Every structure is written in structure tokens, then in C-alpha cells.
């Protein structure tokens, strides 16, 4: 089959690789009809995700049809049309039973390495380094889905791939980011970044009853998409963000803040250049430029919600501001499984059509150029959808 493989920092190619096979009794094989490039794939593309190995098949947002089921999979059959959460979860452990699917105890075969790094191992992830299990990803024609009895969710036939594909990651991720804000009526939510996850966070915040959402970025087309989602926008290259937020909220500050940027933040202040240098000389692994500003801007007693990905260590976190303003921090990989049914319901009821975020739809073989276009934010690129089985 054709599959997108990681070959080193900045090197992505499409190769002929062996087809996946059923290995465990709860596995299924999915023939992929639609897959995407995620913002977090760019961290890997840029070389900030450790324990990648040359030849790893990448990609963690994919859907398709079941072509083979393992001996213990009773709830799926060949031909079922399914979306696959990017977090792999067993459905049986303490965490899965609590609904904390991305913290599954049993799905990371390399748990020992993750325990050494984080104390305890989170769930395995598709196509996202060996620290998170070394599973082959979904930017391919076929994928093996472990624990498919809970890891494949059947979607209604009347919804298109473009409407449902984002159930695999970015819609639930944006939704959980908004849910983590613990929104009350009258609340203002400020969102750092206007990438795909932020776009869903903006719309989810309104679904959850926010009064206002203020979105911060510098890319005109992303700010425009945020505006279409109902957000007021701030271009951080043109104004001082904390000052603007203070004024816009009558001096109170936003009730909650969302860092939808993560470890490769961009900025204009001195601390951004500090982070660039510190990251280069390995004093820190992640650049928390957006996070710092979000903490600083948040109102007293507010919530900092972090869907943006962090992997290692950050420097100069304003802990004093966080402590003395009594902030609450909520973060983590998305418990995708938990959101599949309720968010499908939102789509079916027409409250949101997730396909709004797509700017590029191309054959799988064009993945390498699309990684570059997406990373460099060229050509108005916000979200790339890849179609296996179509010719380039």
C-alpha cells in the first residue's frame, strides 16, 4: 500500500509499504477513505517529537471502511464506515472506565519508556513516535486499529467524510478545550492561535454557552475564519494582547483562556526570542510563549485550558501569576472516545458543520508538499485533507 513515512526532520515521503495485518484479537483493518495532516504532525515534521524512527508511518486523523475484523471484535463487520480516535484506548482499565480514554493504562506497548519520562504512561497514539507506542499511523491506504471494538466509531451514512473526519481529533480536541474552561453564562473565552483546533474551540465555546470568544493570531485568513465562527479577533502583531483583552473585557480580563498553540509558539516579545535560543541549546524542549501570555492575561480565579501539545520541559513559566491569581489549569490529550456520540449528534442536528475548516483536499501522494504548505502557512492553508486511492 501507499503510506506517508517520516524520514527525518523536514523529510516526509510517500512509500510503498506492506499492508497492515491483524495481530491481536481486538484489531481491525480499515481501508482509509479520508485522512488529514494535523497541526501536531508539524511538531514531528519539525523534529520536536523525540523517539521518531525513520520509516515510521505517520498520521492520526483517519476514517474509512472496515475490511477485516479480529476474532474478538463482535460489534463491527466488514463494510462498516467508521472514524478512528487518534488516542488508542482499551476500554477496560480504570481510566477508560472513568472516561479518561487518553490516559488508558494498556494501549502503549512502550509504556516503560513513557513511565521513565512522565512517571506513568499515557495511552498509545497512532503515528506519533515510539514514546507513544510506535503504532503505524493513518496517512496510508490501510491501517491496523488496535482495540477496534472501542476504537472504531460507526458514523451515519447521511454525513459525508468531510463532515465526520474531524471527530477523530480536532473537533473533540477543540470541544474538550472549551469544556475544560467550565463556561458559565456571561463568560468571555480568549483563544490563543486560530489554527484548526482553535477554530473548533471557538465554535464549541459558543455551543457551551460562552457570551463572547476573542481569538488571537496573526495570519489574516485564520483570523477571518475565527471571525466567521463568531469570535472577535486580535492580531498580536498589531496590538498588545493583554492590554487589548483588558480593554475588551471592561478591565476584568477573560474568564478563561485557551492555549491552542502549544510547543512551537510564535511571538513578538522578547520572551519569544529567549525561547527560540533556549530551545536551540536544549535548555527547554518546548516554547511556551503563548502559554505565558495566556496565564498573564487570564482574570483572577479563571481557568487556563491547554489543548496545545507539550512534550517536555518549559522555562520561565509565570507560576507566581498563576498561583496568586488562583488559576485552574486543565490540559491533556483528548478523551476522543467520550465525545464521539455527542459531537456526531451536534453535526446531525446541524449545529455545526466541521467541513468549514478544510482549505485543501488532495490525493495522498501529495502529502510531502502539503506538509510544507501547511507548516509555512502558504496558500491560505488551514486544514489539509488527504485522499488515499486517488491519483496525484
Amino acid at each position, binding site marked *: 500500500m501507499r*503510506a506517508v513515512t517520516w524520514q527525518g526532520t523536514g523529510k516526509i515521503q510517500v512509500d510503498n509499504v*506492506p499492508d497492515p495485518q491483524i495481530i491481536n484479537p481486538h484489531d481491525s483493518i480499515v481501508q482509509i477513505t479520508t485522512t488529514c495532516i494535523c497541526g501536531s504532525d508539524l511538531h514531528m515534521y519539525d523534529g520536536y517529537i523525540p523517539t521518531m524512527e525513520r*520509516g*515510521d*508511518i505517520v498520521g492520526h486523523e483517519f476514517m474509512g471502511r472496515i475490511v477485516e475484523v479480529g476474532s474478538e471484535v463482535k460489534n463491527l463487520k466488514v463494510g462498516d464506515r467508521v472514524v478512528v480516535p487518534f488516542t488508542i484506548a482499551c476500554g477496560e482499565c480504570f481510566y477508560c472506565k472513568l472516561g479518561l480514554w487518553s490516559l488508558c493504562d494498556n494501549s502503549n506497548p512502550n*509504556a*516503560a519508556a513513557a513511565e521513565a519520562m512522565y512517571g506513568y504512561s499515557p495511552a498509545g497514539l497512532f503515528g506519533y513516535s515510539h514514546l507513544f507506542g510506535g503504532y*503505524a499511523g493513518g496517512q496510508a491506504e490501510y491501517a491496523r486499529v488496535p482495540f477496534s471494538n472501542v476504537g472504531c466509531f460507526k458514523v451515519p451514512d447521511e454525513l459525508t467524510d468531510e463532515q465526520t473526519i474531524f471527530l477523530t481529533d480536532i473537533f473533540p480536541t477543540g470541544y474538550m478545550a472549551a469544556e475544560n474552561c467550565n463556561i458559565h453564562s456571561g463568560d468571555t473565552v480568549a483563544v490563543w492561535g486560530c489554527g484548526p483546533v482553535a477554530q473548533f474551540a471557538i465554535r464549541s465555546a459558543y455551543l457551551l454557552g460562552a457570551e463572547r470568544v476573542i481569538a488571537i493570531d496573526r495570519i489574516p485568513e485564520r483570523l477571518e475564519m475565527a471571525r466567521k465562527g463568531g469570535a472577535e479577533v486580535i492580531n498580536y502583531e498589531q496590538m498588545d494582547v493583554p492590554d487589548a483583552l483588558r480593554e475588551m473585557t471592561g478591565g476584568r480580563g477573560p474568564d478563561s483562556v485557551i492555549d491552542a498553540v502549544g510547543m512551537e509558539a510564535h511571538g513578538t516579545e522578547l520572551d519569544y526570542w529567549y525561547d527560540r535560543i533556549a530551545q536551540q541549546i536544549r535548555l527547554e524542549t518546548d516554547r511556551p510563549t503563548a502559554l505565558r501570555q495566556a496565564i498573564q492575561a487570564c482574570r483572577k480565579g479563571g481557568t487556563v485550558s491547554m489543548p496545545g501539545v507539550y512534550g517536555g520541559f518549559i522555562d520561565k513559566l509565570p507560576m507566581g501569576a498563576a498561583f496568586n491569581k488562583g488559576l485552574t489549569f486543565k490540559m491533556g490529550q483528548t478523551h476522543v472516545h467520550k465525545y464521539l456520540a455527542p459531537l456526531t449528534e451536534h453535526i446531525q442536528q446541524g449545529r455545526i458543520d466541521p467541513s468549514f475548516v478544510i482549505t485543501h483536499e488532495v490525493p495522498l501522494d501529495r502529502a510531502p508538499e502539503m506538509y510544507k504548505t501547511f507548516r509555512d502557512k502558504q496558500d491560505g492553508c488551514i486544514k489539509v485533507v488527504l485522499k488515499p486511492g486517488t491519483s496525484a
Partner: protein
Amino acid sequence: MEAPQLYDPPQRSAINIGQEERTFSLIGGIGLITFALWRRSAISIPMLLTGFGLIYRGMTGNSSLYGALDRNTAVKSNPANVSVPHQQGVHVERAVTVNRPVEDLYNFWHDPVNLPQVMGYVDSIQPIGNNQTHWTVKLPGGAKVEFDSEVYTDTPNEVISWRSLPGSQVENAGSVRFRPAPVGRGTEVHLNVDFVPPGGPLAQALLKLFGDVPNQYIAQYLRDFKQMMETGEKATNKSQSSGRKEAVQQ
């Protein structure tokens, strides 16, 4: 009301030198110091230091070299009765909580034929009757180790303890204990293993150099056990597709 229990990790006595050896150390140390003070030559200073070192060794009964080598001459035990003499060998203990009723976990462990499923490198365990089993272990690198083992404590849903029988290539002993975790959290499984690595003190010191390899094995056994009990399979990325040359050429 019951007093709160503090976690009390198993400790070894700091004393690891036998009484006769301690006496010799004291006499030798005093002798060396006397000689050094009498001669007052270039070698006096190292002799003085060595002398004080021997006196310290004799008075405290502790040798850090012995500690590093896991050697202990303070404790004498009769190897006919135990597999791993008291305070000797390598001791590993690790716990995991499994989201299953204690009966399921005990039953799995009670039938030793199951264990190779969750114990990497354990090739087979065959019952030979009389609560005894024959173990075949294939170590990384191809070395094969065999031993016979007997279960000497078996309390349903609480504890199973075993020890190797005389003449084993690797003397070992261990126990697995089951305790209920707080409500809704399943069952705690505490695994203890002691073994004497073949090859004597030098091999033991080498094993220590490689950090906690035995600890990592035990941790992996417990992870695999938990996965088997909770999901019926072990999560794996082995033999899956990739763009690596060896995979593509298959």
C-alpha cells in the same frame, strides 16, 4: 482506632561484615597506624589513611565495597533450607493495580502454565507434580537456564509463594500477594522476587552496573499481566507495517 501505617520499605542491615573479620580489621588498623607513626616516611600518610579505614570498617561493620558487590559475611544461613540466603542476592519488588476481581487474578497465577504468557523470556513452565514445576528460561543472547521450583504457600485470593529446589541453575524465591484496592479500583498485585545471579559476586556487581534490569523485567511482567487480565491481549506494535527497508522488502 488503628494507627496509620507508614510505608516501610524492606531494609538491609548496614552491617555486612562478619565478627571475625571486624576484629581482624581493628587489629590491622591499629597496627598500621602504629607502624606509620613509628616510621614517619613517605608512605606513612597512605598507611595512616588505610589504618583509619580499617578501624572504621571494624567498628561499624560496614563495607561499601561489599555493599556494591552485594557480599555479606555478617549473616550466616544454612543454604540447605532456603533458596536465596537471607540478605543475599538480588531483591526486586513491584506492584500493579488490576481492574479485575481478585479471584480472576489469583486463578491465573495459580495455574503456572499461564505465566509464560506474561513473562518474557520464560519459555515454559511444566508441572512435575507435588506442587512442583520445571521452568525453562531463554535469556536474551540465547543462554538457557532451567530450574525446578516448588510452591510452599498457597492461600487462595491472598498469596502464592515459591522457591527453587536445591541444584537449580538460578536459585530464586518469590511471592505474589493480592490485596483489594479501594472501592472501584480493582486489586493490587504485589510481586516479590529474590534470586542469586549465577557467576558469584562479580556477576552480581556487573548486574548492578546495568542498573535495574531485573526491576524492569518484573515491571514488564506486571504490565503484561495487567493487560492480559484487563483486555485479554498484550498491546503490541510488533510485525506491523512501516517504511523501513526490512519491512518493505518482506
